C-alpha cells in the first residue's frame, strides 16, 4: 500500500474514532444531543459556545459519560499496542496481555491497593503484578531455552487462573457490600466506574509508553525472522526484548488499574489491522492504537446499552467478539508456528 493510502486509512480511522466517541456520549438513559456534548466540553475547555447547557446535562456529559468513553478509548489503544508488541518480540501470534496472564497479574496488584488499601499507587501495584505474571509465564513456558507459542499460552492460562483466584479471594476476604459485582468487574473488565482520574492514568500510560514503543517500531520489525536474524540486523536482542516487555507490563498495569482485565483486544486487533497496514510496525502501531480505541468504545457502548437497564462488564462483549477470531487464528495459522 502506498503511503498516501495508508495515511488515508489512519485519518479515516481517527475521524471515525472522534465521531464514535461523540455519539457514544449521547447514548444512555438520559437523552443528550451532540450539540449539548459539544457545548459541555466547550464550556469546560473555555471555548465559548452558543448553546448553553443545563447543569444536569453538563454533569452527565462531563462527570459520567465522557470520562468513561475516553477511558474505554485509551484502554483499547493501550491493549492493542501491548498485543502488537508482544506478538513481535515473542514471535507468538497468540501473545496478548490477557492470554499470557499479565492482565490477571495486574488485577491482583490493583485489587491489593483498592480493597486492602496497601500503600502503593494503584498503577504501580498493577504494573508490579503484570511484571510478576509476565516473568512467571515466560519462565514456566521456557523449556530448553525456547518458548513455543502453545506453551506460552498454556503457562499464561495457569498464571491467569491463579491470579484470578487470588483476586477473587482477596475481594471475598475483605468482603464488604457488593463483592460479587466487584469481582466480576476486575475479572471480566469494566470501565463503568471511570473517572477523570482513570482518564489521567490511562492517558499517561498510553502517551509515555506508547511513544517509546512507537520509536521502537524498527526494532520490532527486526524480530520477524527470529532472534539470530534480529541480532544480525544489529539489535541487542535480550536487552530490547526485556525493555519492550517491561514497557508492555507498564502499559498493561496502567490499563488494568482503571478497567480490570479486558480480554482479546490485544490479541485480535493487531491481526485485523495487519491486514490493512501490512506487518511493518511503523504503520501497524499508529493504526492499531486508533482501531483498538474505536473497538473498545463501541464494545463498551454495547455493554451499557444492549441489555438496558442492566449493564454488562465490557469484557463479556470483547470475549463474544474475540473468541471466534481466536478460533480462526488457531485454525488458520501454519503448522510451524505451533511446534
Amino acid at each position: 500500500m502506498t503511503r498516501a493510502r495508508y495515511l488515508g486509512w489512519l485519518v479515516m480511522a481517527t475521524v471515525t474514532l472522534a465521531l464514535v466517541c461523540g455519539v457514544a456520549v449521547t447514548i444512555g438513559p438520559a437523552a443528550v444531543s451532540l450539540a449539548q456534548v459539544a457545548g459541555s466540553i466547550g464550556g469546560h475547555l473555555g471555548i465559548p459556545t452558543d448553546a448553553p447547557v443545563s447543569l444536569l446535562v453538563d454533569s452527565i456529559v462531563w462527570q459520567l459519560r465522557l470520562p468513561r468513553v475516553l477511558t474505554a478509548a485509551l484502554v483499547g489503544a493501550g491493549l492493542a499496542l501491548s498485543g502488537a508488541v508482544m506478538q513481535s518480540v515473542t514471535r507468538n501470534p497468540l501473545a496478548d496481555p490477557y492470554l499470557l496472564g499479565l492482565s490477571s497479574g495486574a488485577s491482583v496488584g490493583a485489587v491489593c491497593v483498592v480493597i486492602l488499601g496497601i500503600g502503593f499507587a494503584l498503577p504501580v501495584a498493577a504494573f508490579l503484578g503484570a511484571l510478576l505474571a509476565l516473568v512467571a509465564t515466560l519462565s514456566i513456558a521456557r523449556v530448553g531455552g525456547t518458548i513455543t507459542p502453545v506453551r506460552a499460552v498454556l503457562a499464561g492460562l495457569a498464571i491467569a487462573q491463579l491470579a484470578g483466584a487470588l483476586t477473587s479471594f482477596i475481594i471475598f476476604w475483605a468482603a464488604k457490600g457488593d463483592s460479587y459485582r466487584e469481582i466480576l468487574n476486575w475479572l471480566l473488565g469494566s470501565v463503568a466506574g471511570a473517572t477523570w482520574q482513570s482518564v489521567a492514568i490511562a492517558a499517561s500510560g498510553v502517551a509515555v509508553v506508547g511513544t517509546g514503543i512507537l520509536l521502537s517500531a524498527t526494532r520490532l520489525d527486526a524480530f520477524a525472522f527470529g532472534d539470530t536474524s534480529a541480532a544480525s540486523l544489529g539489535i541487542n536482542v535480550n536487552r530490547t526484548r526485556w525493555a519492550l516487555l517491561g514497557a508492555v507490563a507498564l502499559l498493561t498495569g496502567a490499563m488494568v488499574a482503571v478497567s480490570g482485565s479486558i480480554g482479546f483486544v490485544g490479541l485480535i486487533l493487531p491481526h485485523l489491522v495487519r491486514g490493512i497496514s501490512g506487518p511493518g510496525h511503523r504503520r501497524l502501531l499508529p493504526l492499531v492504537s486508533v482501531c483498538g480505541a474505536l473497538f473498545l468504545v463501541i464494545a463498551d457502548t454495547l455493554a451499557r446499552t444492549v441489555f438496558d437497564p442492566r449493564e454488562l462488564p465490557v469484557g463479556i462483549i470483547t470475549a463474544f467478539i474475540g473468541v471466534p477470531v481466536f478460533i480462526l487464528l488457531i485454525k488458520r495459522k501454519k503448522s510451524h508456528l505451533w511446534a
Partner: protein
Amino acid sequence: MGVDLDGLSFAIDGTLIVRDFSASLPTGSVTGLLGPNGAGKSTLLRLVAGIDRADAGTVTLDGVSIGSLTRQEAARRIALLEQNAAPSVELTVLDVVLLGRIPHRTRLMGSFGGDDDRVVAIDALQAVGAAELADRCWQTLSGGQQQRVQIARAMAQQPKLLLLDEPTNHLDVSAQLALLGQVRALGVTAIMALHDLNLAAAYCDQILLLDGGRLVAAGTPDEVLTPEIIGAVYGVDCFILQHPRGGHPVIVYSSATSKGAS
C-alpha cells in the same frame, strides 16, 4: 586486508565448540566452511558475525576488531543468512528485503523516513534477479526463491562480509547452482558453511575444514579436498577427479559395499 580470525575459542556449558581457530580471508574471496555435523560451523559463523562473543581470540574486518563495535555497527558491516529462517508474520518479499536496511537507520528517529531504503531494497532484488517477486507473499515462494530473497535482504544491508549458513539446504540442483553462482557474482567477501564438498570445490576460492571445533585443513579446494584428508575427517573413501570444464576437483565417493566389490 579482508577478514582475519585469530585464535578464536568458544565454549557452551564448559564444552569447547570452537578451539583456537585462525584463518585469513582476502577481500572479495569466497570461502567454504566444511566439516561434519557438529563440527562447529554455525557457531563459528555466529562468532564472526559478532552475535556470540568469543571467549578468546579476535575477528578483524578490514583492520577493525568486531569486538570493539556495537551490534548495530557490526550489522552495517556483516550480514548473516541463517539456515531455514521463517517469519512469524506474513511478509511480502519487499518487506523482507527492507529488513536489511534496519542497521542503517538511526536509533531514535530511525522508525520514520526511509525512502532511500526502498531504492536500495529494489536494487538488491534486481541484483539477484528477483525484482518481479517484490510484491509476492514470502510464504508462497519456493525454497530457491526464498533463499534468493534472503540474499537480496543481506545485500540491502550493504555488508563488507557475507556469511551464509548452509544456503543450499533443501534446494534442488539447479537452485543450488544458481544460488552459489549469485554469491560469487556479488563480489563480496563471503564465508559459507556447506555440506556438499563438490559445491564447495566448484564455487569457493578457499576451503576451511573443521572437525571437532578445530581447523584441520585450509587452502584451495585442490589442496584440502584430497582422499586422505576427506577420509580422515568424514571417514569415507573417495576418488578425486578433475572437472572436465572448470578443472576443479570432483569428489566421487565409494560406499562401503562398492569398496568391498573392488
